[in-house]
């Protein structure tokens, strides 16, 4: 409990320090949102020409895109400490954490909080909400609960990837860029229905990287559950 209140205290400090550079903050907020707006705009352009993707409409894809976008942006906002961890190790700042009477994982986690990712979260949320209004989904208690669980587990999954990327720098000093394939690449890949990928590509991501199917597949399961895409899914696998 003490840790939790301390965490919120840290977050408040981070936000206050970022607010010191207000102009830069606002600029960042918009530039971040603009990157993701253009991302989705391009998907919309493709659907404008091709109408469908393996039987999926624009807003069905938008549903996926919104979900994975929210998870990733929240993970980036909260897990920023692990993202910049290599800088701490290179500079020797990590040593100061080792002498403090708190767990190092906890300290790294609470070390940063990137408020400007709110721009990205808002964009993904808008896409998700519009997609919901365009699709006829009958929401129930169980479905909303399942949705929340998926969002939380998706976020945790990405934070976990950041942690893996961060720890690698104990060996390589510079954190390995290759983790980008799973983070940024995962978002890019997860924005499209999984069935369009070749089996070996799909299986690499579902069984080797993520045996519990939390990644990329998790939102498909949600869509299946929420939106009754069973038939379509069966066709895709065939």
């Amino acid at each position, binding site marked *: 409990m003490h840790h939790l209140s301390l965490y919120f205290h840290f977050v408040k400090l981070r936000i206050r320090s970022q607010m010191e550079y207000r102009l830069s903050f606002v600029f960042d907020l918009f530039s971040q949102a603009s990157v993701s707006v253009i991302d989705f705009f391009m998907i919309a*352009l*493709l659907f404008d020409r*091709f109408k469908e993707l393996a039987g999926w409409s624009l807003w069905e894809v938008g549903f996926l895109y919104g979900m994975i976008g929210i998870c990733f942006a929240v993970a980036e906002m909260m897990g920023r400490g692990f993202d910049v961890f290599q800088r701490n190790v290179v500079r020797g700042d990590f040593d100061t954490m080792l002498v403090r009477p708190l767990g190092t994982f906890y300290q790294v986690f609470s070390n940063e909080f990137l408020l400007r990712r709110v721009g990205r979260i808002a964009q993904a949320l808008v896409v998700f909400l519009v997609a919901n209004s365009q699709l006829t989904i009958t929401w129930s208690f169980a479905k909303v609960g399942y949705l929340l669980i998926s969002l939380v587990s998706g976020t945790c999954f990405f934070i976990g990837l950041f942690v893996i990327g961060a720890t690698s720098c104990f060996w390589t000093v510079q954190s390995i*860029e290759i983790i980008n394939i799973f983070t940024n*690449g995962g978002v890019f890949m997860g924005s499209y229905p999984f069935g369009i990928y070749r089996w070996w590509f799909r299986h690499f991501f579902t069984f080797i990287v993520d045996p519990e199917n939390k990644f990329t597949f998790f939102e498909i399961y949600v869509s299946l559950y929420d939106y009754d895409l069973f038939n379509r899914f069966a066709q895709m696998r065939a």
Partner: protein
Amino acid sequence: MKSLFLTFHVYLAFARKSFQRRMQYRVANLAGLTTNFFFLLVHIFVYTAFYAARTDPQPLNLNEIITYFVLCQVFFMLMPFWGARSEVTSAIKDGSVSLQLTKPVDFHAYWLADECGRACYYLLMRGLPTFLISILFFEVAMPRQPTALMAFIVSMTLAALMSAAITITIFSSAFWTLDTTGISGLSYSIITLFSGMLVPIALWPEWLAHTAEWLPFAGLIDVPFSIYLSKITGAAVWIAIGKQMVWTLFFMGLGRVLLSRGFSRLVIQGG
């Protein structure tokens, strides 16, 4: 004449140093190659799925699309997406740029030489392997005529030069903002959109493609690749290359003006 040769020699040395500096990071380059291929694969899967549903002819067939995205990954590191690269902006932030200024060289040309060395490195160590491996695994179309290949080389060189000029322009904004994350993020989204990096401009609806024609950024990716694929032929090639030249000169000029303005500010700040 001799002094001109000497000047050229100095900048060539800068470019070579920039190249050698990057040679140190072999593992990082290997990781970058893997990343290139990952994104290439996802693009190819997505477009294959889109094309599977359509039987009517499209402005680019699937084979041309695949070639387009292979080229995208080959030249990706030459594009001006790296405006937030910290070593340069932090030089402005912490003032060590003043040390670089004491060198008796034209600063804009110095940065340009540095960028050129960087471009050569990525072309050789990243672009070439990407291209060779892609030929093995995908059906990559080759230029139809030797003239198309020649025009492509000219056009791509201009694209790389313009990219370097844009990068320097973005850097120089750090004299005012001290932090280029915001501006490079904004320029990143504009450039990815209008260069045709995510979706080839030929597939865009007409109104948007028309807008892109009036902007410089198509000259980075879409124009050279269209020349490669023989989608731009004949006199249109000359017009396209002419446009690229004009825009390259524009960004070179803009970068020079911003830099000299920035330096005068720097002097004032330094007292």
